[in-house]
């Protein structure tokens, strides 16, 4: 169905792209397509042949009319019919090859783009994800690439084909009769103007429709979710009126698009008739002057639709192309975002064991490249100032201090989530900046506060700790923490789907999964961010026991929110205002009577 609704969806400011940007995108796209250039060339060649077959039809009709009907030659009529049939079959065959080739090439490209963008995305530093909104990044991988998918599966063939048909037809009819061509193409500018007018007006109108639908739907949703309050206060009438207003607004927005189409499509239809009239009228003058044969007039009438339809379709495809271009520009922007904690060329593996040493480290957030919207994030206030601490192999160190003191930041630097502005973090004498990414995550693992679960089974979730682990190793990790009984009590044991309704895991159980992951990863250094929120009393004890088993024999840095955790560690570092104020064992610090002693005294009183 044409018109009334349009196929490619409206274009908002977000999905527009200016000419210069479009050129950059095209150049880069061409470069990216270079590995597939063979396939692109084949597809283009096929398209040209198919278009040629399409254009040959009216020429054959012309020959059949002039040499067959006018000259009264039955054999020419037969030959013309056979030729037409052959050309039509060829056209269909090539058409099939075109669709298949263009789709396959396009889908190949899209698959490559998807995996490449995602690989780049997951490889970026944590700072990047703190700057960007998750929703926008998801959109790069979904709606933006989907816009390209639409282009590949529908738009691209239509676009190229329409251009070829229009230009090809123009060339052929000019060769047949330039005089009649001149007369015919006067119909093109008004149709073109009308088509552009329609595209612009209907675009605005469809944006209105989109807004009106979303506001109507939110009234609807409110009315349904709030129905109990509405009824409790007997306000059904008022709410129905409110809905009717947004409902009518949606109708109005919709009917406006119909009005616009109602003005445009009659122009299209009249242009079609006008085209025939012009060809027949001018043709008759030319024929009577013996400048033309009647078959040519017939061929011209048949060619008319080859001139008119591309104009309508191209003006509609413009939106698809624009949004695809804008989407590509955004995707390229993402691919250009550099990783601010890259793996240095010639990076070395970290030694199997060693001390974790923080030497004179200063750090502030921000100061990285602008985000993908081009917004700068200037360097923020200093979070850590000249911090030094050495953690011996197998030692457990707790970081304590008020919120915002910099203890979490210090922990993240120890795992190279960020690089320090000044100073150095090293493991076994090798700076983390010089380490390979793989060896870094093999030695140092960070267990975040909340146990985030991915879709899949419990087993899949534990495997995050080491993708190559087999079931036996996963079960060994679970056993090592004494969690087998707990996990097997779930509906389907380790094969329980964690996201399914009814098997919702509690916050404590999520923590247990997180610890099992860490046990599977089996690093030498564990960086733990203790949960601030309290867990359900049942699992709290289990979490503590599992933690105890997990940290056994490993170097541990724990961001402690509970002093009971700190008390169990070998040493405690009191962090405040970006510095380590006190450092020593729990007993030493309590005996010293400083900051930690005060905190501890307050805490023992409250328990």
């Amino acid at each position, binding site marked *: 169905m044409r018109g009334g609704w349009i196929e490619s969806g409206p274009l908002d400011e977000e999905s527009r792209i200016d000419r210069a940007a479009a050129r950059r995108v095209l150049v880069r796209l061409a470069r990216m397509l270079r590995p597939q250039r063979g396939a692109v060339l084949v597809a283009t060649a096929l398209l040209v042949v198919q278009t040629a077959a399409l254009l040959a039809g009216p020429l054959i009709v012309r020959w059949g009319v002039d040499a067959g009907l006018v000259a009264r030659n039955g054999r020419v009529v037969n030959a013309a019919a056979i030729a037409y049939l052959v050309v039509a079959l060829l056209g269909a065959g090539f058409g099939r090859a075109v669709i298949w080739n263009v789709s396959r090439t396009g889908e190949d490209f899209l698959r490559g783009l998807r995996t490449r963008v995602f690989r780049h995305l997951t490889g970026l530093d944590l700072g990047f994800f703190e700057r960007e909104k998750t929703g926008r990044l998801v959109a790069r991988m979904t709606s933006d690439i989907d816009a390209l998918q639409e282009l590949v599966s529908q738009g691209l063939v239509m676009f190229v084909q329409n251009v070829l048909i229009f230009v090809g037809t123009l060339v052929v009819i000019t060769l047949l009769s330039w005089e009649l061509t001149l007369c015919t193409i006067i119909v093109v500018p008004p149709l073109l103007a009308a088509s552009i007018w329609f595209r612009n007006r209907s675009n605005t109108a469809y944006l209105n429709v989109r807004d009106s639908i979303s506001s109507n739907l939110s009234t609807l949703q409110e*009315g349904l979710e709030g129905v109990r309050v509405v009824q409790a206060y007997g306000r059904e009438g008022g709410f129905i009126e409110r809905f009717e207003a947004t409902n009518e607004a949606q109708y109005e927005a919709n009917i406006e698009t119909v009005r616009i189409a109602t003005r445009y499509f009659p122009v299209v239809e009249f242009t079609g008739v006008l085209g025939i009239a012009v060809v027949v009228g001018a043709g008759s003058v030319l024929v009577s002057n013996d400048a033309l044969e009647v078959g040519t007039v017939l061929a011209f009438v048949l060619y008319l639709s080859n001139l008119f339809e591309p104009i309508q379709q191209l003006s509609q495809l413009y939106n698809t192309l624009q949004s695809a271009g804008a989407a590509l520009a955004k995707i390229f922007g993402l691919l250009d975002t550099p990783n601010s904690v890259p793996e240095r060329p010639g990076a070395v593996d970290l030694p199997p064991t060693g001390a974790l040493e923080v030497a004179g480290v200063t750090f502030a957030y921000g100061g990285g490249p602008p985000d993908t919207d081009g917004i700068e994030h200037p360097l923020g206030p200093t979070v850590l100032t000249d911090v030094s601490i050495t953690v011996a192999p197998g030692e457990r160190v707790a970081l304590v201090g008020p919120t915002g003191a910099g203890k979490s930041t210090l922990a993240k630097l120890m795992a190279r989530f960020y690089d320090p502005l000044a100073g150095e973090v090293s493991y076994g004498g090798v700076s983390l900046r010089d380490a390979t990414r793989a060896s870094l995550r093999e030695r140092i693992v960070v267990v975040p506060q909340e146990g985030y679960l991915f879709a899949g089974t419990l087993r899949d979730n534990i495997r995050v700790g080491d993708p190559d682990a087999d079931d036996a190793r996963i079960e060994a990790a679970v056993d090592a923490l004494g969690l087998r009984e707990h996990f097997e009590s779930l509906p389907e044991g380790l094969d329980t789907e964690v996201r399914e309704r009814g098997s919702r895991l509690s916050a404590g159980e999520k923590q247990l999964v997180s610890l099992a992951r*860490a046990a599977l990863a089996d690093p030498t250094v564990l960086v733990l961010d203790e949960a601030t929120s309290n867990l359900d009393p049942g699992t709290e004890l289990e979490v503590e026991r599992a933690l105890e088993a997990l940290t056994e024999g490993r170097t541990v840095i724990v961001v402690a929110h509970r002093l009971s955790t700190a008390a169990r560690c070998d040493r405690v570092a009191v962090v405040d205002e970006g510095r380590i104020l006190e450092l020593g064992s729990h007993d030493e610090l309590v005996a010293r009577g400083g900051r930690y002693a005060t905190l501890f005294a307050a805490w023992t009183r409250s328990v």
Partner: protein
Amino acid sequence: MDAEREARRAGWRLIRGATRPQWSWVAAGIAAGAAWTVARLVVPQLAGAAVDDGIRSGDTGRVLVLIAVMLGFGVLQAGASGIRRYCAFRIALRTETDLRAQLFAHLQRLHFAFHDEAQTGQLMARANSDLQQINQVVILIPLTAASLLTMLGVIVIMVSKSVVLAVLALGLLPLLNRAATVFSRRITPVNLALQQELSGLSGVVEESLSGIRVVKGFGAERMQNERLAVRADAVYERSLQAARMRAWFMPLIDLLPTISLVAIIWYGGHLVLDGRLQIGDILAYNLYVAMLIWPLRMVGMLIAQASRASAAAGRIHEVLATDPEVADPHHPVPLPPGPGDLRFEGVSFAYATGRQVLGGLDLHLRGGEAVAIVGATGSGKTTVARLVPRFYDVSAGRVLLDGVDVRDVPVAALRDEVGIVFEDTFLFSDSVRHNIAFSDPGAPFDLVERAARLAGAHGFIAALPDGYDTVIGEHGYSLSGGQRQRIAIARAVLHDPRVLILDDATSAVDPSKEHEIRSALAEVMDGRTTLIIAHRPATIALADRVVLLDEGRAVATGTHEELLATSERYREVLARIEDDEAAIEGSPS
């Protein structure tokens, strides 16, 4: 199967009923469609005549006359086309809009039990995607009518000249319809599967980004990359499957009309040589075949769309056919003035699931008395509260307000005298002021402010960016649970009811702030019958009397102190509630 057929039939009745008010537009649309068809059929005839009578005989004057007539019909065709399109879309949009309004109004009046069962998402789908299916079939009906007329006209014209030519030229075209139908039937499941793969892919993206700290912490980038690659491969496979179908069918759909043209050239050509046809006719027939392509494809679309639409309409009908279970009585009696004396007599209640909640409850609240109902989870406390404003009706026994069965008075009058504050507060995306005045839209501002003060809400409202005009709710400023509850209390206060029901209405209020509203609540409750469903002893203390509910009956009554002293069960229930509270709020760290 029969049920489905019945639902579809009901769906068609619904569509017919909804389009009936627009008969004038339907008639105009059909008339315009007929005029459009006639004009379209005439133009090729004129073009053919111009070629034969004008060009071939060299009569330019006659050509000009024919062209003038042709342009006249062109104007008619264009005008009729516009009117026809406008009518078709208007009818469809009007039908969709009216049905949506009807559906919404009906849903607003349906009883609580219906909404307990129904999912918002599903009802939204009824009002959105299902109605769009209906819209599209309604558009297609008048458009297809004109298409059928066009087809009929073309067939008549061709057959009148030569039956054989008509058969040769048009014989293959039904295959076009068939091919289009088969194509859409085959590609629809593939496209659905593709959508599914795409959403699976976006699921991997979303969770990888939401869980990026885990991914980074464990170095699980490679694992997620591989999971995505699997999804990308699946998308690729599905897309190619769809492409393969397009590659088969699209060229075929384009080929069939061309074969008709070949037939016209060949057999028509020989007819011309035999003198039974003119060259102009060949031109006209060519134009006719081009004219038939869309109508034939549209008939296929209509059939597919009709099936989707009738199923959608059946689902909508099912909602509309649900009668509100709580309705005005046939012979309503007015609610007499009174102090708000509330009496439950042998009240039993079971939910639709069959779970018996109340079994023979007897309870009496004297006018102006404040009674707290205490009971373990599942004891039926909330149900007691919801029977008063008839959110549900009793299964046995009766609820009397000032001596009248609540089922005998008009629902609106009853609810006007009962104010309820729910545990889960619902606020609308609107200003604070309108949210409070929701219970009494005409209330002057000073009354709204007074209600807010009484609910202990004025302080934080005044501190909001735009005070009482601050927009809150889903699309606005977000408030804490306790703040939301205080706005809901203000709403009930403004309502000024005879009976006030606080259903766990202060559960989310920070305990340190609770004393503020407690004194305010005491003032509000003064002289009003109040039913308090409470957990916290502090809130229970607001009541004059406490009723202990156990297994759907009132098992003990007295003051808080009396019950503590005499009832073992009461102590048990309170202890359990305190345990739960402690677990929820956690111990201080």
